[in-house]
């Protein structure tokens, strides 16, 4: 399984290098208040959502799955390696976000707990979207999962917009978040993150079932 994990890292290294080049620019822009730090955190978590699709698309190009399933590891281990890869990416994103928050707190006196709360919420979204896309990728491949990604992001957005503009949805409830203390915000963020991890576990079990039934 570690070999498969290593393979994912190697295959995605070009993407990592691009992100590593972009990141210092974003940090500088955030330091000069040109870019909002929340935007940067959201950007990297959006990248996290896209990573499973890229990994599956590259595997699809090489027809890697057939080979991986013929190795003496079992299908579950192949699926587990992909989930571990995504979790490692999520953890790295989180660590980067945390370091950035700490840096902004040090330089600009930003509220680190508030940034942490936002980081947790954004990471949860990244995990949830990955959790939905991974089983779809196992079932139908990266291309269909890409369509699902648009659906996952756009349908709720337009649904909320429609409900809000037609007066059915009251978004003023979000203003109450401002009145929450930073500690309460972090607490709720942590709960969200736990929910995201639980969703990933459920997603992993579904993907294992799909991989077990699939013919390669």
């Amino acid at each position, binding site marked *: 399984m570690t070999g498969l994990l290593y*393979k994912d890292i*190697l*295959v995605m290294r*070009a993407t990592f290098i691009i992100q590593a080049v972009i990141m210092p620019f974003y940090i500088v822009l955030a330091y000069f208040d040109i870019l909002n730090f929340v935007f940067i955190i959201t950007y990297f978590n959006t990248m996290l959502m896209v990573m499973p699709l890229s990994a599956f698309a590259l595997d699809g*190009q090489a*027809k890697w799955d*057939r080979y991986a399933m*013929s190795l*003496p590891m079992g299908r579950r281990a192949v699926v587990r390696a992909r989930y571990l890869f995504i979790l490692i990416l999520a953890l790295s994103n989180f660590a980067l976000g945390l370091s950035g928050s700490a840096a902004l707190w040090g330089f600009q006196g930003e509220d680190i707990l508030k940034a942490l709360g936002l980081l947790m919420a954004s990471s949860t979204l990244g995990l949830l979207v990955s959790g939905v896309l991974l089983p779809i990728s196992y079932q139908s491949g990266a291309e269909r999962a890409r369509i699902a990604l648009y659906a996952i992001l756009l349908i709720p957005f337009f649904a909320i917009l429609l409900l809000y503009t037609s007066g059915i949805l009251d978004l003023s409830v979000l203003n109450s978040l401002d009145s929450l203390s930073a500690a309460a915000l972090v607490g709720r963020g942590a709960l969200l993150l736990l929910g995201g991890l639980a969703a990933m576990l459920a997603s992993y079990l579904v993907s294992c079932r799909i991989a077990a039934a699939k013919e390669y």
Partner: protein
Amino acid sequence: MTNCIEIKGLCKSYGDFSLQNIDLSLPGGSILGMIGENGAGKTTTIKCILNLIHRDAGEITLLGHDNIREERLAKQDVGIVLDECFFHDTLRPRDVGKILAPAYHNWDQKLFRDYLDKFHLPEKKLIKEFSRGMKMKLSLSAALAHRPKLLILDEATAGLDPVVRDEILDEFLGFIQDEDHAILMSSHITSDLEKVADYIAYIHQGRVVLSDTKDNILDSYGRVGCTAAQLETIDPRDVLRTRRGSFGCEALVKDRTAFSRKYPMLLVERTTLEDIMLFVGKGETQ
């Protein structure tokens, strides 16, 4: 002695195509060549052996282990080269070694490097810059580096030039010098199988229509060239298949010697695996 591969009553249906009651066995120290037309069921059989698809019925053991219940154990001693190179273009041969090493208990990194050297594959070159021959040699190096006892090859020599094919076939012959080793090899290139195979299994429309030692097949089967009038004089029970063309007729006979004795006026030639494939694929029964 346990057969390296034992397949009994293998069935797999896709609706418009089905494998029907495939029985095959591969003894140690030998090469079994699987021939058949495109879509005959060779790859489906190999996929069933590797548990890549779910069989409908039958039993498969690899090196004495059930291929489903003891899949991981069974595959530890199996090397696989499929019809394509499955390594990503952005990887390098040295990456392949690091990726596969944790999967096999007996992975030998030095042996893998030795194979890369032997096949003149640069360790640090991107796979996308490799020719098809180089990619297949890389796949073969990866398949051999954990010292497998059984090699499963699906069209591994397809699309390669004769020099590379010969080099790879030599490697196979070296591999089976050990009595514990065996190779299952599916190929369209029947001349390759005539060079190296000990046993031949011909799969036609999902069934094994011929399974015997290569020597038995090539020594006993024969091809009769005759006119349409001469063909009419032959007892239909003495020929397996016939082909009629504008320049005459041909018939496939199972026992060349017996046929020559019975029909001394007709010339019976040795046959090749390709002839047999053409007779079964395009010929007709008398």
